[in-house]
């Protein structure tokens, strides 16, 4: 069965490049350009995984993660934090906040596919 990945990311370039990589690996990819839209799409699409950027206009990735994990409708969806900025103890912080993993941009396409394969559909 085709698995769906929702990318919540404000940079179109990142969405397009990530989408190409994941579609080449057989995933269906949906995107949202901010946290609010991302939360709505997570509820309506029930994706197998969310790739979540941190630095976004409006509510940032940490707040988006908090809201996704607080809502019973979306709390089970695995979320991978996907960031281009250094975050002190980012891995630890994202894990404590309920994220399944933490991934830095720029990325190696193979690594991204491996990580998404590992977590997609592993509802928590």
């Amino acid at each position: 069965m085709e698995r769906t990945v929702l990318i919540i990311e404000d940079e179109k370039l990142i969405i397009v490049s990530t989408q190409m990589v994941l579609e080449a690996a057989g995933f269906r990819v949906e995107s949202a350009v901010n946290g609010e839209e991302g939360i709505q799409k997570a509820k309506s699409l029930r994706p197998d995984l969310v790739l979540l950027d941190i630095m976004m206009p409006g509510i940032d990735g940490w707040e988006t993660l908090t809201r996704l994990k607080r809502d019973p409708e979306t709390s089970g969806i695995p979320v991978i934090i996907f960031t281009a900025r250094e975050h002190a103890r980012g891995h630890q912080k994202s894990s404590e906040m309920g994220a399944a993993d933490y991934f830095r941009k720029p990325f190696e396409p193979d690594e991204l596919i491996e990580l998404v394969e590992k977590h997609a559909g592993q509802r928590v």
Partner: protein
Amino acid sequence: MVVVTVPRSTEAPDTACRSSSVLDAVLAGIVAVDREGRVTLLNPAAERLLEVRAMTTIGRCLGELIGDGHDGELLAAVREDLDRVTPDRPIERVVEIHPNGSLELRYVRLRSRCLKDHLRAPAGAVFEVLDVTDEHKTNQLKNQFLSIVAHELRTPLTGIKTFSTMLAKGMLGGLEERQQTVVESIREQSLRLEHQIDKLVNLGHIDAEEYSQDLDAIDAVEVVRQALGGFEVTARDRAITLRAILPDGTRIVRADRSDLRRAVQALVENALKFTRDGGSVAVTLQDSEPGRVEIAVADDGVGIEPRYQGRIFEKFFQVEDPLTRHHGGSGLGLFFVKNIVEAHGASVRVDSALGHGARFSFELQLDGTGETITPQSTGAQTAPAHPTTDDR
């Protein structure tokens, strides 16, 4: 430098008087305590910073002052350092304070050194307290700026790297040989740029000492393999044989994946830089002592003079004169390697002779052997808040 002489009763009165005048004049706060933590000396600058009066403090234990209406965090740090400082191990850190319990935030650098008596036995400690608020705020702005710049550079780079990698790996269809070469070159240059941005961000962390705090169980073999990915074309263009000698299977270590990759990349970059065209660089990962693996980068390049071998890990140190040198670079690569490796509880070893190449190596503990990693302090610690990298 502040030299402190604690007056003893046997000293000539004029010597004690001179010492006292010096202490009154210095801008840094100086506090000396005996082994029981009783204050034996406190200069006027310390009175101002600690908000205490010498006449009511001398002879009292520092512990008694805590919760006395003065700034608890600073005094707690002083008390903690008194228990930890040894003749061989001075302590330095930056502490956040709120003078008089106000909302105003200031930063002070606390340097703690062991005091010895006339028989050179530990006799207490001396604390130097210096207000570094302006310096600290400037540093925070610098780190914030570097972090934002890095983010802005990484975003377009993600596109370049991803698309060139997809093309190079044939994910978007086959290419002619010349097209393949060009695409691989674009990919390699993007990896090189990524490495430079990582160094830029690390530059912001020089004073923050924030290395390798995301320890995770990762495959060291895979990390080494990835680290080499950015240098294949450079090596080929210069006819340098770049070999990876890796064991079969995985070697799981507890490490920070990105930092470990950066350390290996910096070592390979350094080796390529100092290897002549046509030379060779070998990256080896092998089992060493039971439960440990060694990662080594060896070249047959110009080598390092013995007098420089202890200094090459210093920040900005370069063997060549920066104005006349033939090799590029910032003088930060090996400094980062040292910090990253030490944050993993290990140390970098260098074996080299001038004209006969160099071999840099370090060992990591395999995961699951029951031993825990204790990151080593690499120098000054900062105040607990680090808004530059933790704000978003």
